């Protein structure tokens, strides 16, 4: 299953609903292009909802890091929402769980932006 994304606005925060796989190739490119597009349009408060992401490889992890740093470098914030166990485990063993701001609740994630 390739990656699919949809975006919606909640109180000035862009929620990106991701589903499928974030892997080398199409999945990584979709995420990269979307985040760049959001930032170029001034959407700098971004939440990646990963509830339906069932697989991610090292390239996908790299894309999450890239999205995080790109957003931060442009004065924005990017947070992760609702990690599946597999993605959570990967972020734990790569020590990235402490880098990302990870939320379990969408309303709390939206409120957490300054």
């Amino acid at each position, binding site marked *: 299953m390739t990656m699919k994304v949809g975006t919606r606005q909640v109180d000035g925060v862009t929620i990106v609903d991701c589903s499928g796989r974030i*892997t*080398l*190739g199409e999945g990584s490119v979709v995420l990269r292009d979307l985040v760049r597009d959001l930032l170029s349009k001034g959407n700098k408060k971004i939440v990646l909802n990963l509830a339906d992401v069932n697989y991610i490889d090292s390239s996908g992890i790299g894309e999450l890091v890239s999205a*995080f740093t790109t957003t931060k470098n442009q004065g924005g914030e990017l947070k992760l929402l609702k990690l599946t166990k597999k993605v959570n485990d*990967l972020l734990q063993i*790569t020590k990235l769980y402490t880098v990302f701001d990870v939320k379990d609740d969408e309303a709390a994630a939206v409120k957490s932006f300054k």
Partner: protein
Amino acid sequence: MRTFQPSPAYTQTTSFMAMTEQRVSYTLDSSLETIDSAEEKATKIATELGFGEDEVMQISMAVREGAVNAVLHGNAYSPEKKVTLAFERTEQDLVITIRDQGPGMDLSKIPNPLAPENLLKTSGRGIFLMRSFMDVVEIRPSTTGTELKLIKRVHGATAGGKEASR
């Protein structure tokens, strides 16, 4: 014991040995499709050998990362270069070998992705993930390519019993 039956369309060589020892190998193009295909084969074989769900995920992801290295960093997508992928079930182990025909990996350039200065790098986690998920990871570079060996112990394996191994 259930045996894993490779698809004839992809089979380069197949040699079934004793009930506890089987080997199958594939010769694949240096393409993105190969990476997905390698992962699918690993998932199928690990499942059929009776590994648990988490172990199947670990094995398939390690194979995927190995295939990524072979296709991208080894063969650099060259249509003239092939990737060889082999699965071997020994009495105690599932041994997976991935060979490329690239210039040979420089082991001194493998980063530690957990180092603070590397934490926010967008690449360099593949070998770390393989080492996290497999019992043994051996990398043998040469001027004609790199051979990667991934080994997962078949815990509690007996003489050919899938159910007994779990």
